């Protein structure tokens, strides 16, 4: 029942989000026909294009047609590339999704041990060191880290190219190699945020009586943390990971520009510069829907993982 409620809520959120994307692109001042043909276009040509794009139909009708298309996999045709938006999105996602996942894995691998260690050594030097490094880490713009990496590894040491992507056809090793510097630049600020959350959540869980009880019954510190404190810390950690996901996606889009990667980010900025409304709409919807779905997933997993929120047998 609870799952059904959550699913209905998810569907409602996605529906309203798509409505906002549609309205934003349809209601904002600026004639879509003029934007595509340029300010000096013949009025007749603009009118013909408007009719062809269905822009003269009433708004609710256009929304239903647009949403129906999206649900059947038809995101429309890009004005500048003259190919299907879905095809473009799928092609570019082959860079953006692996980059975001790579960065997420790196940030968890960095933040989880650091956060746990800081929580266990609360108030001592190691804790203060982790917190200090995290504070600096989350104050550094990923763009700047990217530039520093490019200078050190590409210009100075000449170990890596300054950017670009060889494509997955060049082999997974070379492709992942091209994603490594951007993923690290993206992961460091994320890891800093995550390490702080892990520390806080775990510190609070460790203050609970059941952890003291486990220790009193002879559990080692590690055992108490792994079996008693950590299971109770996952829920707040996952909630914040879900909330941070939008930042991760936006960060990935920006870092693609720094390293000249042919991902969704570059596609978005080209679409904005070309005023390719159908394409901006498609990318926007995919990003927003992903954020909504990941948030919902994190919520569900957080509930499922919390021993106290789990329904007993």
């Amino acid at each position, binding site marked *: 029942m609870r799952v059904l409620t959550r699913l209905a*809520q998810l569907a*409602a*959120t996605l529906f*309203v*989000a798509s409505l*906002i*994307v549609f309205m*934003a*692109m349809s209601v*904002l*001042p*600026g004639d879509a026909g003029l*934007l595509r043909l340029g300010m000096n276009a013949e009025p007749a040509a603009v009118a013909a294009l408007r009719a062809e794009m269905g822009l003269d139909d009433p708004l609710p009708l256009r929304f239903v047609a647009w949403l129906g298309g999206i649900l059947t996999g038809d995101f429309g045709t890009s004005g500048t590339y003259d190919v299907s938006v879905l095809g473009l999105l799928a092609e570019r996602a082959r860079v953006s999704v692996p980059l975001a996942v790579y960065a997420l894995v790196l940030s968890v691998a960095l933040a989880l041990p650091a956060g746990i260690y800081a929580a266990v050594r609360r108030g001592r030097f190691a804790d203060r060191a982790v917190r200090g490094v995290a*504070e*600096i880490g*989350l*104050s*550094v*713009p*990923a*763009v*700047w880290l990217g*530039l*520093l990496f*490019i*200078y050190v590894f590409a*210009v100075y040491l000449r170990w890596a190219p*300054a950017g670009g992507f060889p494509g997955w056809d060049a082999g997974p090793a070379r492709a992942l190699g091209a994603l490594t510097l951007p993923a690290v630049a993206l992961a460091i600020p994320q890891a800093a945020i995550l390490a702080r959350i892990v520390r806080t959540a775990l510190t609070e869980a460790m203050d609970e009586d059941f952890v003291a009880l486990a220790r009193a019954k002879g559990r080692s510190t590690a055992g108490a943390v792994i079996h008693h404190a950590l299971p109770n810390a996952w829920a707040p950690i996952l909630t914040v990971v879900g*909330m941070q996901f*939008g*930042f991760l*996606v*936006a*960060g990935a*889009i*920006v870092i693609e*520009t*720094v390293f000249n990667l042919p991902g969704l*980010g570059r596609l*978005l*900025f080209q*679409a*904005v*510069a070309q*005023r390719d*409304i159908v394409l*901006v709409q498609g*990318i*926007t919807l995919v*990003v*927003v829907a992903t*954020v*909504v779905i990941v*948030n919902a997933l994190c919520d569900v997993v957080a509930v499922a993982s919390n021993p106290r929120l789990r329904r007993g047998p």
Partner: protein
Amino acid sequence: MRGSAGLGVAAAVLVSIIAAAVASLWWTPFPVDGFDMGNRFAMPTAAHPLGTDHYGRDVVSMLMAGAQTSLAVAAGAVAIGLFVGTPLGLAAASSGRAGRAVLMLGSDIVFAFPALIVAAILSTFRGPGAFNALIAIGIFYIPVFMRLTASSARRVLALDFVDAARLAGKSSARIAAEHVLPVVAPILLTQAATQFAIAILIEAGLSYVGLGAQPPAVSWGRMLAEAQTLISLAPQLAVWPGLAIVVTVLAATALGEGLNRRLDPRFAGRHA
């Protein structure tokens, strides 16, 4: 004691950056819109403490003008979040179950739109600019302040003095304004400092990718983008704007955390 000193340092750093930004409205050591092609890529001298860029512009003057963009966008965005999100959060806390559910669902939906996406949508129609960045970050901040206000206000609304006010016949709007707001205001202001820091980072990213301030306006993010094209020739140009961002963000974050420590009852009595 240590906390208070940190708070003082953070406040002092932030005030100097604000002063530099305000001063740049009337005066910078050298003009930022003029070229001095004979003086390109100058190394640090007494006249140009951080050298000059590829157009011979003084880097210190550029940083001052860039601070103006960063701080104005960040302050504007936080103001939108505070002034729109706080009343909505109070409304959510004061209203019944259904009203609260609708308001919070709305907040969740807006929260799913990263500032970058809103900036991209606005730029498609209006062309890019610093004002778009301000609006985009501001919209994203509405649910941030709304959630914080709602959760803090609900805790206050459960207290006895609120019941007393209700018995005295005050409307829920008056209770929210006269009794709840003063209690949650310090929490919101603390959060405002933290969100100000994050806005500086988002603004830098937006102007780096070309969705923020446009020439001739100077911004730290654009300075980074320009420095990237010259990175093998003059890597020092990539260092200064990045450092300016890091110092500003660190100072604002430290200010937020210092204030939080002062307000948090769990730390009561620990500060000097």
